[in-house]
């Protein structure tokens, strides 16, 4: 038994080629049905996203090269591409390497932005397509479920997805560092820029209680207020609302400072020095950077956010190193589970062995029984075999059960009890 993975990703292959190889959901399903013939390619699964096209298959060890060949042929056929155009850029992983690759993909270690959560959903969908197409079996089912488990472990045990890597989400993350929780906090959105809107949405999802929106022209602010469940306020009276705002997100097209140092100083006195958090996403800046010098005021402009994002990406990469260790230990566990899966035939062997014992005993004791008709002889044999079968039935069905559950320890115990070889 061998697991083979052939494919391209954003590291191995430029987008120009990847987009030619990409397959729609329907193309994946029909492609799988034609690729998986049950003899050479026994099981199959295709992950096709904007960053990768990968074909995962299970085959007999002797058919490894043939399988790879068929996958390449399939990719050529499905996309009507000359194979010279992509063949050299394909990577091929077998067995442990293929397992490692799938685990890393599902855990978002192989992603462009390490730790992004979407890839797991994409693998899930690829699996459900293959499941519907009926091209997964014992091995791939187990492998993919194991990959989901690894992904979950990586997410909960490392901080790989912990720190924001998008500017719009930074508002939430930094806000949490300042305010702890957003319950009871008020956000003020100045301008209706796309980035500011996205940041505000994140804040609302994170639990900000009140959202005030203001814009030079009132209509966009009203529309957004309806959508976010906020309150539109008069742009001209900005200074009056400033003291209420714990978080201010500013993104307008104005060429000057809309929020001045004096405004913030006044607001802070009214706030009794409670901390205030300003995010300026506009270029040129709309919030006077000088307010950063005021105690209890924290201001971030686009450049600041960018640099935090890149430092967070570095932090994620550090966490990724720990995730790799989890992947390695899970590969070992998967190997164990796989060995257990392969013990399925042992049940049949045991049944045969018990029946053979019954027959041998009959042969040994045959002389004592005296003359018997052939019908009587076969009757005795049937009696013995069916007795053995009846007695062993609960044991064998338990054994099958353990095999299906792939409980390696119990299967090993079964083997030890009956002295079965691997």
């Amino acid at each position, binding site marked *: 038994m061998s697991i083979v993975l052939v494919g391209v990703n954003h590291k191995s292959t430029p987008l120009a080629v990847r987009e030619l190889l990409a397959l729609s959901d329907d193309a994946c399903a029909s492609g799988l049905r034609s690729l998986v013939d049950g003899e050479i390619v026994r099981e199959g699964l295709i992950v096709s996203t904007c960053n990768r096209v990968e074909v995962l298959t299970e085959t007999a060890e002797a058919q490894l090269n043939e399988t790879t060949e068929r996958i390449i042929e399939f990719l050529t056929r499905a996309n009507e591409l000359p194979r010279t155009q992509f063949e050299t850029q394909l990577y091929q992983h077998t067995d442990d390497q293929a397992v490692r690759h799938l685990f890393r993909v599902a855990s978002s270690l192989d992603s462009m932005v390490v730790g992004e959560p979407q890839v797991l959903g994409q693998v899930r969908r690829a699996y459900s397509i293959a499941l519907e197409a009926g091209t997964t079996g014992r091995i791939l089912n187990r492998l993919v479920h194991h990959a989901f488990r690894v992904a979950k472990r990586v997410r909960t045990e490392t901080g790989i997805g912990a720190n924001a890597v998008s500017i719009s989400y930074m508002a939430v993350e930094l806000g949490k560092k300042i305010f*702890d929780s957003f319950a009871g906090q008020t956000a003020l959105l100045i301008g209706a820029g796309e980035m500011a809107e996205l940041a505000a949405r994140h804040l609302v999802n994170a639990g900000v209680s009140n959202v005030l929106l203001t814009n030079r022209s009132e209509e966009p602010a009203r529309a957004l207020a309806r959508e976010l469940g906020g309150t539109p306020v008069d742009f001209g009276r900005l200074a009056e609302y400033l003291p209420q705002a714990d978080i201010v997100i500013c993104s307008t097209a104005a060429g000057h400072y809309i929020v001045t140092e004096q405004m913030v100083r006044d607001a802070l006195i009214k706030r009794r020095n409670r901390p205030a958090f300003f995010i300026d996403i506009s270029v040129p800046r709309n919030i006077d950077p000088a307010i950063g010098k005021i105690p*209890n005021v924290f201001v971030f402009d686009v450049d600041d956010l960018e640099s935090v994002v890149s*430092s967070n990406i570095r*932090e994620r990469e550090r966490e990724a190193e720990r995730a790799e260790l989890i992947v390695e230990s899970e590969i070992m566990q998967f190997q164990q589970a796989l060995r257990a899966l392969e013990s399925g035939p042992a049940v049949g062997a045991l049944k045969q062995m018990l029946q053979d014992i019954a027959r041998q005993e009959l042969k040994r004791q045959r002389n004592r029984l005296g003359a018997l008709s052939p019908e009587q002889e076969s009757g005795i044999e049937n009696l013995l075999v069916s007795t053995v079968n009846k007695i062993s039935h609960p044991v064998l069905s338990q054994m099958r059960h353990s095999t299906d559950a792939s409980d390696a320890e119990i299967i090993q115990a079964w083997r030890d009890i009956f002295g079965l070889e691997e």
Partner: protein
Amino acid sequence: MRSLLLAVLAAYVVAAIHAVLAFINKRRALQRVSELAMAAGFLLHTVALGADWVIDGHYPLFYLRETLSFLAWTLVASYSLILYRYRARPLGTFILPLVSLLVFIAVVTHSVVDSSTNTIAVRDTWLFPVHTTLLFFAYAAFFVVFVASVMYLLQERALKLKTFGAIFHRLPSLTTVNEIATSSTAIGLTLLTVGIATGMLWASSRDGLLWHNDPKEIFAALTWLLYVSLIVYRSTADWRGRRAAWIGVAGFALVLCTFFGARMMGGYHVFG
């Protein structure tokens, strides 16, 4: 009681190591181990202190060994309260190693039994346990203020300079550490006030003097003034955040002077 104290030390060391590892690795499981070990250590510690009191016949705050052990005990008690109230686990990363160190010194220190100290006079009054216990809890509270203030300053600096290291992501939010510092200041100051008052009461009942001008008294008074001003400033909201945090740090320097004052400079307060 040394063997019991050794068990206490072992539990605290386990708790401290796991707290540090949990801080670094952000692992919940490690944190649980740390908290369980701390709980076990605290229980044993309480038993050890109680046993000392019963066996030695005096409140266990005479010799350096006892003082350090008792201080560690108050720190663990304070940290437990903070855990319960704020779930601010990172504080343990800094408090538990100190606790372990204090208990370690307590274990290796041989108590010099000096019969010339007026143990008899002390043994007779109920004011001694009250006076000292209150002040030790006040010290612990001020240490918590100190740690929370340092955490505040580190994060405030990071947010102002926009440079976020690994530590930044692991500390509790500014609001949380600020609240911890504020409430600990209030609690510490209350304990300090009552502690000083009982001390004066005791002193006046002994020799009719409220004030002996001894270094410990002077430093205690300075400490008291500083924390009163901190409370006042915090409540008038002028000095929120960074300035308040700096006072919390400076205040702890005074607390250390108060604590070691008698030892270094001698005076009326003969015990640790």
